[in-house]
């Protein structure tokens, strides 16, 4: 069922067994797991059922450090959350993403990939993906037109990606939520403060407010924060009446280790023949799977580099591509991401031609994890939003390791093409430049907010434990990519949904 919190009498008390704050992929994935159960689940959405400018403004904030997208337009504040502008790119994390890698400070999760594998399989239908199959050979057996440029070898391998339609969570799951007898969705219900008990050992209530001037109280046996890495950190930090540094922040870790993926044009691939490269090229709305080139664990360890992948786009299509950091410049999310009719038409025509005739020159795009960095962080700004909550401030900070890793990845891939005698790789100028401390002006992320409430069994090094419970607070849990310790080379949605399902199972087992 659905209630507009603006229509409730002021100071209404809402009570339930489980409260989920946020209706994006993490929150709704968990909520649907609890549909038709005996438990009363309260689902809080700060915005409405559709985009509204004044609601979105509550997500605005400043950025400093490495230039980033306008914060306000990098995530969405209405039912379905950021899935409403999600691109649909999915792949699993690699086993090494969970390992403590000696060459990457602050790496290492308290769980392994094997712990998530069953949940990846369950996440697939939720995200409208195909079979949970991430072995390139098995895809090739089904479709012989899928040919690898480089066979998997000890240096480079083909990492499989799958593409969702993409799933808009609000549209897909909204009808079921509204029909449900035990899921109680409240829209216009912004959590402005979490109140703990006197000992600050458990959560007692949540304060929710809206722009209609109403304030309500929510009480639940367990609370899950699932509002994304920026808002999860912001709510904890802003709940500082009982804990000076904010809830769950005794060790000054909340908000730190903010990460995104670096997604950039990086190199050119030159082939002596034309090839449609069906295995590697992506056409929006058509492609169900493709491969990206990845570097083996052994090579990453030997060269001390981050995990990253390289994807291909024909040079003619790439040439009309404007880097996201130069095109996604408006604070209004509705004004970004529009390619324009003629440019879109041109891109589709080129894509059609390349698909049928093939191409011999390709742009190589990097997607690489950012090194976990405590100085890359979300803090509270001195300015409050319309509901009186301090606005978030992002200080995004990269390290030379990211750039050195990118260069090494292309040198390693270049060696493989040379060794196979099938092509040559040419780095873009900025990667050949040995100054790893500077970045070109098109350096940017993938709108992936990651890592602000990181997971660790040790309260000294993490905000949540391996079951996503906030250290020191008996009934407060976190869902979403803020839980990630490292960002992997894959986009976060599939993994954050898998992790959310795992949390849901954990809570169900506890009854």
């Amino acid at each position, binding site marked *: 069922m659905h209630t507009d919190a603006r229509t409730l009498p002021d100071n209404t008390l809402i009570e339930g067994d489980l409260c989920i704050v946020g209706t994006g992929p993490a929150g709704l994935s968990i909520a649907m797991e609890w549909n038709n159960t005996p438990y009363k689940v309260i689902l809080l959405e700060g915005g409405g059922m559709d985009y509204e400018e004044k609601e979105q403004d509550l997500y605005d904030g400043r950025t400093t450090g490495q230039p980033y997208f306008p914060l306000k337009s990098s995530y969405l504040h209405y039912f379905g959350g950021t899935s409403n502008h999600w691109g649909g790119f999915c792949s699993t994390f690699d086993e090494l993403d969970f390992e403590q890698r000696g060459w990457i400070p602050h790496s290492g999760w308290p769980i392994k990939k094997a712990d998530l594998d069953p949940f990846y399989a369950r996440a697939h239908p939720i995200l409208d993906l195909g079979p949970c199959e991430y072995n390139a050979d098995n895809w090739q057996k089904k479709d012989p037109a899928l040919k690898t440029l480089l066979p998997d070898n000890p240096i480079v391998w083909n990492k499989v990606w799958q593409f969702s339609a993409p799933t808009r969570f609000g549209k897909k799951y909204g009808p079921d939520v509204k029909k449900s007898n035990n899921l109680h969705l409240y829209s216009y219900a912004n959590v402005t403060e979490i109140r703990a008990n006197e000992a600050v050992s458990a959560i007692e209530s949540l304060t929710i407010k809206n722009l209609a001037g109403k304030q309500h109280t929510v009480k639940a046996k367990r609370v899950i924060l699932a509002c994304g890495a920026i808002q999860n950190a912001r709510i904890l930090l802003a709940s500082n009446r009982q804990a000076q540094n904010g809830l769950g922040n005794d060790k000054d870790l909340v908000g730190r280790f903010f990460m995104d993926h670096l997604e950039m044009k990086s190199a050119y691939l030159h*082939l002596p023949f034309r090839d449609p490269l069906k295995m590697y090229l992506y056409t929006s709305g058509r492609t169900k799977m493709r491969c990206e080139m990845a570097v083996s664990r052994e090579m990453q360890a030997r060269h001390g580099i981050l995990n990253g992948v390289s994807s291909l786009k024909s040079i003619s299509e790439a040439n009309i591509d404007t880097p996201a950091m130069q095109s996604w410049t408006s604070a209004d999310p509705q004004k970004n991401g529009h390619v324009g009719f003629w440019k879109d038409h041109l891109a589709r025509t080129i894509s059609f031609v390349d698909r049928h005739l093939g191409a011999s020159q390709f742009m190589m795009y990097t997607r690489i994890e950012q090194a976990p960095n405590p100085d890359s962080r979300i803090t509270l700004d001195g300015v409050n939003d319309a509901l009186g909550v301090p606005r978030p401030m992002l200080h995004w900070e990269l390290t030379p390791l990211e750039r050195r890793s990118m260069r090494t990845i292309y040198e390693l891939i270049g*060696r493989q093409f040379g*060794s*196979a*005698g099938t*092509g*040559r790789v040419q*780095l*873009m100028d900025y990667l*050949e430049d040995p100054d790893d401390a500077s970045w070109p002006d098109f350096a940017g992320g993938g709108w992936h907010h990651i890592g602000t409430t990181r997971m660790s069994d040790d309260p000294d090094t993490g905000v949540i434990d391996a079951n996503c419970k906030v250290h020191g607070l008996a009934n407060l849990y976190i869902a979403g990519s803020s839980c990630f310790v490292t960002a992997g080379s894959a986009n976060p949605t599939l993994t954050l949904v898998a992790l959310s399902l795992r949390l849901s199972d954990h809570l169900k087992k506890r009854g």
Partner: protein
Amino acid sequence: MKRRKFILLAGAGAAAIAIPVALRRHRHNSLAKPLGQPDFLGHICDEATVREIGAAYCARNPEEREEDKLVSLLIATSDGDEHRAKDPGKSAIDSTGVLRQLDGAIRDDFAAGRVVTLKGWVLSVTEARQCALYSLSHQ
């Protein structure tokens, strides 16, 4: 007698040196052109790019900035036991054989990590030398 023997020996010695040198020079001259044409790069980039790569290699390796030196290095590469063993029926003197062996040497360079990055191109040292030779011979 001793003097005569010395002259004969000296003549034989001179011939022993001069004939291989002449052969070598002839071989150098006949091979310089094909050696200076990187086959794979010729299929994927234009002449100006090959020259730029070659100039960049020379700038980074000034001790190799001579045609003879580069030809010697490339012949030595193609003469490598490893490559001859792969193609024992061919004399390294014929240009086709040399180029085929260079192709093998280039792949081996990549596999062994003997690579250089010049003007952004990730190249084998052998093909970078070929570019350098092309660049010097087309100045």
